[in-house]
C-alpha cells in the first residue's frame, strides 16, 4: 500500500499494482495510438506522428492525422473507456461477473434503436441517436421491471437475459424486413465498427465521458462499501438506493452513447473489468484500471482487425472472438482453481 498525504488536507492509499497497471496501460495505449496514426496508405514514422500532433507537420500530414486517423483513434479510446468503466460498474452493481451490458440487454436495445432507423431509412446521425435512445429505453425498462422494489443482482441478471432474448428476436425480425443493401449496412453496424468515424461521431460520447468519468469515480469509495452487503454499507453511511440509481444511469448512458458512436462492440465491457481485477490483484471494485484496459483493448483490437488480419475486419469481430475466448478460458481456469 502506498500512502499519499498532502498537508493534512489530501490523503489516500493506493495498491502499488494498481499504479503499475495504470501506468503500463497508459504507456501501451499511447504506443498503440502513435503506431495506429502512423499506419495506413500514407505511412508515417512515430517521430513524424508526434511532430504532427504537436503542430509541426505539413498541411497534408496535418489533414491525414487530425481529420482521418485521429478521430478513429479517439472514438476507439472513448468507446473502450466507456465500456470498460460501465462494465466494472455493472459487475459491481449486480455483484455478478456476468453482469455486463452485453448480457443484460442494453446492447441489444441499442441495436433495436439502430435497426429501426435502418428500416425506415435515415441519416447516420439519426441512427446514432436512435441507438442511444434504444439503450436508454432498455435501461428504463429493466429498471421498471427488476429494480423498483429493491434490487437483487440475480433478478436483474435474469430480467436482463429475458429482455436481451426478446430484443434479439425483434432485431432478427427487423433485419428480415429491410432491403438487402440496408441489411448489410445494419450488419456492419451490429458487429461494432470504427470505420470512417469522424469527430462528430465521437463528440456526444466525449462530452458524456467528461461528466460521467469524474462522477462515477467519485462514487467508487461508496461502491466499494456495497461489496460488504447492502446492510453493512447502509450501516457505514452509504445511501445504497441513491447510489445504485446514479451508477445505473451513468453506466447505461455510457453504454448507449458508445453504441451510438461505434455500434455494439462486444465483450469489452465484460472482459476489461475481469482483466483489471486479475492484473491489479486488488480486492473489489477497480473502476479506473477497468476503463484504461477497456481503452487499450478496443484500440489494439481495432488495429489488429485493420492491419494484422486479412480483409479489414470491423473491430467487433476481434473483440468478440478474443473476448469470448478469454471468457471461456477464464471460466475453465477459475473452475479448476475452485473460485467460480
Amino acid at each position: 500500500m502506498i500512502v499519499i498525504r498532502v498537508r493534512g488536507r489530501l490523503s489516500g492509499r493506493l495498491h502499488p499494482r494498481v499504479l503499475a497497471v495504470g501506468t503500463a496501460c497508459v504507456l501501451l495505449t499511447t504506443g498503440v495510438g502513435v503506431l495506429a496514426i502512423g499506419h495506413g496508405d500514407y505511412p508515417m514514422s512515430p517521430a513524424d506522428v508526434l511532430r504532427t500532433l504537436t503542430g509541426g507537420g505539413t498541411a497534408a500530414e496535418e489533414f491525414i492525422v487530425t481529420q482521418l486517423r485521429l478521430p478513429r483513434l479517439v472514438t476507439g479510446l472513448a468507446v473502450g473507456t466507456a465500456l470498460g468503466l460501465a462494465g466494472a460498474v455493472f459487475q459491481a452493481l449486480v455483484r455478478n461477473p456476468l453482469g455486463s451490458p452485453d448480457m443484460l440487454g442494453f446492447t441489444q436495445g441499442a441495436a433495436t434503436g439502430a435497426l429501426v432507423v435502418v428500416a425506415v431509412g435515415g441519416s447516420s446521425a439519426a441512427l446514432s441517436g436512435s441507438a442511444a435512445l434504444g439503450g436508454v429505453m432498455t435501461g428504463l425498462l429493466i429498471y421498471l421491471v427488476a429494480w423498483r422494489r429493491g434490487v437483487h443482482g440475480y433478478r436483474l441478471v435474469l430480467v436482463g437475459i429475458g429482455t436481451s432474448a426478446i430484443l434479439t428476436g425483434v432485431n432478427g425480425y427487423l433485419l428480415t424486413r429491410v432491403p438487402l443493401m440496408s441489411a448489410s449496412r445494419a450488419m456492419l453496424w451490429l458487429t461494432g465498427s470504427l470505420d470512417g468515424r469522424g469527430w462528430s461521431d465521437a463528440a456526444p460520447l466525449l462530452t458524456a465521458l467528461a461528466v460521467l468519468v469524474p462522477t462515477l469515480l467519485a462514487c467508487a469509495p461508496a461502491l466499494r462499501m456495497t461489496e460488504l452487503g447492502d446492510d453493512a454499507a447502509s450501516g457505514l453511511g452509504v445511501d445504497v438506493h441513491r447510489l445504485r440509481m446514479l451508477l445505473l444511469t451513468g453506466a447505461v448512458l455510457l453504454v448507449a452513447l458508445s453504441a451510438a458512436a461505434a455500434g455494439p462492440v462486444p465483450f469489452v465491457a465484460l472482459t476489461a473489468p475481469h482483466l483489471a481485477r486479475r492484473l491489479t490483484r486488488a480486492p473489489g471494485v477497480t473502476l479506473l484500471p477497468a476503463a484504461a484496459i477497456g481503452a487499450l483493448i478496443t484500440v489494439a483490437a481495432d488495429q489488429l482487425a485493420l492491419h494484422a488480419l486479412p480483409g479489414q475486419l470491423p473491430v467487433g469481430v476481434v473483440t468478440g472472438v478474443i473476448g469470448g475466448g478469454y471468457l471461456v478460458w477464464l471460466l475453465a481456469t477459475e473452475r479448476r482453481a475452485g473460485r467460480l
Partner: protein
Amino acid sequence: MSTSRLGGDGLRLAYDRRVVAQNLTVAVPDNSFTVIIGPNACGKSTLLRALSRLLKPAAGAVLLDGTNIHRLAARSVARTLGLLPQSPTAPDGIAVAELVARGRYPHQGLLRQWSPDDERIVAESMAATGVDDLADRLVDELSGGQRQRVWLAMALAQQTPLLLLDEPTTYLDIAHQIEVLDLCARLHEEQGRTLVAVLHDLNHAARYATHLIAMRGGRVVAAGEPRRIVTAELVEEVFGLPCRVIDDPETGTPLVIPAARVRAGTVVR
C-alpha cells in the same frame, strides 16, 4: 429513569403488507449492553433493522438524540450509530487490515481518504479485538471466530458511541460464541459504548446483558435488568417453554434450565 439516545416510539414495522410489529415503544438506556431476545419471527431482528435506519417504520419514529433517524443523512447517522449485520460479505482477496479500514468510511471525504487518524484508529480497533497479528492475512482464510472479531474491529473503527449487532454469535461454536460475547462485554465496559445485540441464546443474554428486552409476537413482553425480569413465568410466556430459573454458579445471573420432558430416550412424567 436513565437517559436514552436511541429508541423507538409507537413503531409499526412491516415488510410490504406483512406487519411484524404494531405500536412498539422501546428505549435503549445509555451505556447499557442491551440484548433483544425472543422466539423466531418475534420481530427482534426487524426492530434492530428499524433502530439502525435499515427499515423505515410504517408509522411512529425511531429517534436518535431526539431526531427522527430518517430525517438525518445516512453518513451523519453512521458517525453516531454503527451496525454489524447478520451476514456481511467480505470481498474476495481482501486483507484483514483493509476490511477494518472500511469502518472509517463515514469519516472520510473525497479528498481525505486516509488520514493519520484513520491509520491510528484502525490499529487500535484491531488491537482491541485481538486481530492485530492477523492484519495482513486474507479474511477468507480465517476461522469463523476470527472473522467475527475482524468484523467487530471494523465496526469499532467506525468509532460510534452506539453499536448495533444482529446475532453476532450465529454460526459460531460455543467457544467462539463466548469469545465474541466476552469481547462485546469488554468493549462495553472499557470503552463505555452502548451496545445493542440480538441474541438467540437466552442464557447468554441473561449473563452478558445489562438491559434485556424480551419480545413475542411483535411486542415487548418485558424490559429491564436480567436479574429482575428473567423468571420461569417470563420464559414460559415468551418462549412457551416450561423451565426453572436458577442462579448461574459462575456469575450469579439467571440461568434457565428447561424442564425435562425426555431423558435419554424415556419420557419423564
